[in-house]
């Protein structure tokens, strides 16, 4: 059963929490809602679930208009950031609770619980109470309950946010496999681009209640249609350079000249924003085409195998991600290199006009 939102708006007071969102989610897919806090991820999920009614627009499920239908009447399951379980029930009863409500025969309950428990590696914990479990196991229980319901639509609102880093990593690894084994539509909200990329599937990037782009996650990452999507998908943040092209010259702040390489010469004269990701800035000249720029080191962060160098280039803050350990002194002036082949260029309306060759190629093979 397909879920479709048609021109959905949610107005609270004078603010649009959701404005004109149209999305189609196919059964058996994982769909990620990505955006910062207050971008409208939770509001959108509440509309999908039927916990809220849209101010305008319609929600369709399997071709039927379900806009006014209450959440109790829809076959929906939800998992929250907080670990929500019934504290006085065993793990087994927790997982079985939606099935008991649906008056499913005891044999079938046993069977279904056993199935999801093994999927989530909870087989040995079924008789325990949720309080005896670790955070990761508690969230697995909540997840198992949602899966056992065999709902048509499973909504997950930042389900891993309250877990330890490593547990998050493990669950991220397992979730796509678990999702693939059921035929439901999964909608997964997160603030972290890295999480979206690890989970794969499709991503809808959200900003101030609007969907800025929807497509396969890697495609949205490598070919963002507008500046805001590129920023939402970048962690570390996207490096940005506002420039003006005039008479075959491209200038930043009317004195730093950007050589017209790659696809830049074809652009008509206008204001543009150049964006590129931190791993596309280099400490050494890596090709003939490379553009060298003087930069002042602000802070260096070392992760063990890589270094994040925060730099100041004529008043703009950038991050450079270099492999290896580089201990640079604060305020030291260094030369860094940009690769014009890696530039995303956005026009004055922040729409993409130039895609880096590598991204275009990568998009082509997939």
């Amino acid at each position, binding site marked *: 059963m397909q879920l479709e939102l048609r*021109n959905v*708006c949610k107005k609270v007071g004078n603010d649009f929490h959701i404005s004109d969102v149209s999305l189609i989610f196919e059964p058996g897919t994982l769909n990620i809602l990505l955006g910062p806090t207050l971008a409208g991820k939770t509001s959108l999920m509440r509309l999908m679930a039927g916990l809220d*009614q*849209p*101010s*305008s*627009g*319609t929600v369709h499920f399997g071709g039927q208009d379900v*806009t*006014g239908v209450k959440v109790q009447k829809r076959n929906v399951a939800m998992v929250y950031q907080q670990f929500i379980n019934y504290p006085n029930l065993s793990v087994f009863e927790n997982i079985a609770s939606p099935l008991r409500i649906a008056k499913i025969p005891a044999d079938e309950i046993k069977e279904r619980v056993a199935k999801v428990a093994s999927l989530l590696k909870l087989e040995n914990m079924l008789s325990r109470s949720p309080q005896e479990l670790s955070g990761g196991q508690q969230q697995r229980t909540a997840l198992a309950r949602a899966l056992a319901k065999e709902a048509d639509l499973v909504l997950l609102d930042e389900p891993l946010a309250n877990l330890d880093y490593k547990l998050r990593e493990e669950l991220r690894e397992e979730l796509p496999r678990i999702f693939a084994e059921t035929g439901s539509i999964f909608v997964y909200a997160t603030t972290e681009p890295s999480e979206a990329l690890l989970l794969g599937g499709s991503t809808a990037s959200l900003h101030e209640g609007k969907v800025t782009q929807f497509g396969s996650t890697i495609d949205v990452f490598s070919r963002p249609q507008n500046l805001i999507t590129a920023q939402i998908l970048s962690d570390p943040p996207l490096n940005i350079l506002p420039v003006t092209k005039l008479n075959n010259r491209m200038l930043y702040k009317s004195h730093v000249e950007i050589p017209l390489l790659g696809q830049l010469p074809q652009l008509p004269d206008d204001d543009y924003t150049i964006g590129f990701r931190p791993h596309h800035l280099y400490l050494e000249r890596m090709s003939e085409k490379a553009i060298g720029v003087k930069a002042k080191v602000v802070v260096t962060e070392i992760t063990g195998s890589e270094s994040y160098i925060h730099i100041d280039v004529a008043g703009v803050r950038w991050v450079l991600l270099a492999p290896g350990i580089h201990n640079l002194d604060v305020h030291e002036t260094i030369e860094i290199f940009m690769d014009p082949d890696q530039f995303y260029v956005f026009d004055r309306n922040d729409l993409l006009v130039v895609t880096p060759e590598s991204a275009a190629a990568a998009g082509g093979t997939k």
Partner: protein
Amino acid sequence: MIEKQINQKAWFMVLPVFLLVAFSAIIPLMTVVNYSVQDTFGNNQFFWVGMDWFRELIHSERFHDAFLRQIMFSGIILSIEIPLGIVIALAMPKEGWGVPVCLISMALPLLIPWNVVGTIWQIFGRVDIGLLGHSLAALGIDYNYTQEPIAAWLTIIAMDVWHWTSLVVLLSYAGLCSIPDAYYQAAKIDGASRLSVFRYIQLPKMQRVLLIAVLLRFMDSFMIYTEPFVITGGGPGNSTTFMSIDLVKMAIGQFDLGPAAAMSLIYFLVILLLCWIFYTIMSNVGEESSNGGV
């Protein structure tokens, strides 16, 4: 775009409640309004007097006195119960066996019916057989609530404080318990004094529950009837004749239905007005702290 469909069926669901409210509140209120603009000499004969009763009442000394007594009583009650309630809540333990003990002993007075509370204090304060009255008399203190207005007032105030401070305590305690530990730790680290902790952490975080406590206690104390009626019957003289007692005297004692109806309406409007003022002031304090700016 399709507008959300409005379902008219819901009105039928509300209908029973509406009828109930109509019978229990709106119709009686309208009857009172009806009485307040008429006069009667009995025999069920009424005639129109317009706003006369209201005019007369507003200029009558009897009403002024009852009103002043009422305001004074509520003022005293609030200024004792709110601070005392907060102090007790602050002193209550946050964990361990003390918590249920304190909570239960605090809840006990709230479980006793009003007239029983009145009777308890009526006997408690009697000079001949009451523990309080007798002990005070034995100490040589001239105390007799049936004779002296001050003693009568003190008794009623003591009773109300005894009866209702617990409510303030329980509400404040709930407010205090919702403050995360990190706030206290941060305050310690910032070197804040006990007073600063109270002023900048506890009080702002208790603001909402205190608003509810003040409103509840104000409304209740402004309408107090049963307890002073049982203890003093409004005496000695008229010294504890609060508005509600005066109203009953007028309506049932003297059978002056018109003026009593007018008084009820004024009484009702005064409570409504004062509650609105309290609410606005106290939520404005909150607004101010959330709106920012200097």
